[in-house]
């Protein structure tokens, strides 16, 4: 129970009363250091020193690793197949479970009174997205769907059906949106982008392979028809067996129905604008050509 006031507790109290520590009175715990086996020290001078009798083994001239004496080796006999072909061009999504999302909401790292965006998730240090490593965003996964109970307006890049059902069951709204590489980098790190002084670019539309996903109502794509989305919500409620809450009567209905335009990267900021953080101002272009370009 004699805990010393300084760090070190009992150990430092004991040390103070012992004689000076030097190499002469230190030794490791028995069994901590095992003496190594040295070759060439046995009876008769070690004889062959563990090298065998004559041949390549004793003379140190063995062939390369994988050589099988002339038989076609394993690594050449098996035919090639493109398992990893184009791996650096495949889109990847950082998974986000509903359990982790609920944890972030509970600790106050993600604000549910505003629409949840990838920027909000990154600011709350919930996910880390690396656009340079072929990440295209965040994938919402239904791990923890049974404990999830938060009403949110969330925008992700991919979502599983179970995750969509869990969010809508609690009266929330989920959308999937596409961000190209530049828009994604800006979305993840908006402050360095604003400091660079460039105008906010317009978000590009998805490529051919992703159009189908983002125009589908069952994925709640941002390019899909709102009526189809409504039908899909009813069907999903029937499939998963819950009553779909009516969000139009909700007090947060305005926040829940906020959506980004298909060319918009940030809520409230349009493409073409330049943000001046030092003077807390936003500069908007007035030239007609620029307006037509950014408005298209």
């Amino acid at each position: 129970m004699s805990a010393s006031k300084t760090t070190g507790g009992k150990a430092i109290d004991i040390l103070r009363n012992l004689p000076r520590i030097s190499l002469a009175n230190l030794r490791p715990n028995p069994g901590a250091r095992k003496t190594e086996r040295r070759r060439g020290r046995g009876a008769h001078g070690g004889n062959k020193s563990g090298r065998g009798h004559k041949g390549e083994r004793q003379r140190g001239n063995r062939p390369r690793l994988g050589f099988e004496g002339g038989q076609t080796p394993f690594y050449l006999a098996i035919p090639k197949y493109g398992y990893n072909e184009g791996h650096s061009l495949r889109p990847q999504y950082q998974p986000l479970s509903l359990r982790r999302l609920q944890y972030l909401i509970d600790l106050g790292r993600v604000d549910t009174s505003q629409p949840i965006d990838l920027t909000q998730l990154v600011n709350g240090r919930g996910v880390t997205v690396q656009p340079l490593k072929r990440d295209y965003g965040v994938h919402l996964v239904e791990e923890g769907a049974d404990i999830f109970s938060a009403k949110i307006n969330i925008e992700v890049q991919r979502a599983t059906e179970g995750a969509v059902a869990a969010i809508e069951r609690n009266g929330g709204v989920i959308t999937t949106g596409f961000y190209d590489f530049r828009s994604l980098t800006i979305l993840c790190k908006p402050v360095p982008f604003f400091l660079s002084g460039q105008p906010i670019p317009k978000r590009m539309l998805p490529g051919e392979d992703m159009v189908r996903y983002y125009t589908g109502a069952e994925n709640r794509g941002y390019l899909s028809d709102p009526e189809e989305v409504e039908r899909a919500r009813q069907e999903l409620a029937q499939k998963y067996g819950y009553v779909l809450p009516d969000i139009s009567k909700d007090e947060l209905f305005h926040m829940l129905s906020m959506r980004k335009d298909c060319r918009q990267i940030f809520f409230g900021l349009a493409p073409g604008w330049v943000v001046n953080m030092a003077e807390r101002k936003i500069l908007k272009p007035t030239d007609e050509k620029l307006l037509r370009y950014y408005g298209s």
Partner: protein
Amino acid sequence: MRVNYVFQFCSLWRTRATESGPMASSSTAEQKCAVVESTEEYKYVERLIPPTKIPTPPLHDGPAPSGWRPPSAVTPDLPYMVRRSRLHNVPVYTDLTHGNRKTTLLRKIEGDIWALENDVKEYLVQLTGKIPLTQVNEVTMSIRIKGHFDKELKEWLLEKGF
């Protein structure tokens, strides 16, 4: 029921301020200048700036849906104290070295560390039936236990009120 989405972006383009900026009047009449608009939309930029401080968790009635529980308001009357980590979690961590060596680390201990070690040993003896091997580091004020006991130790510490 049709949800009428609020497309913010479309309405933004209709508000085009035609007043010129303060600097343009001296130059030629043809000069186009960017219109400066402050504070109205700057609040959206403020929302995007990442916070520098870790936010304090909001109050919950009992455990939160994710299973997180705050430390009890009353400090438990024990000779030791286990603080929460920076992100308000219980500081029990598991480690796996050499592919097969499982240890549990209990950090951020203050006060009488040997009393805590005794209590931990008593508790784990009840659970497993054998006395766990423990290592007390008085300099870093942490306890390392052989085996993975993170879930059990976290619950045990939460029950104590840490």
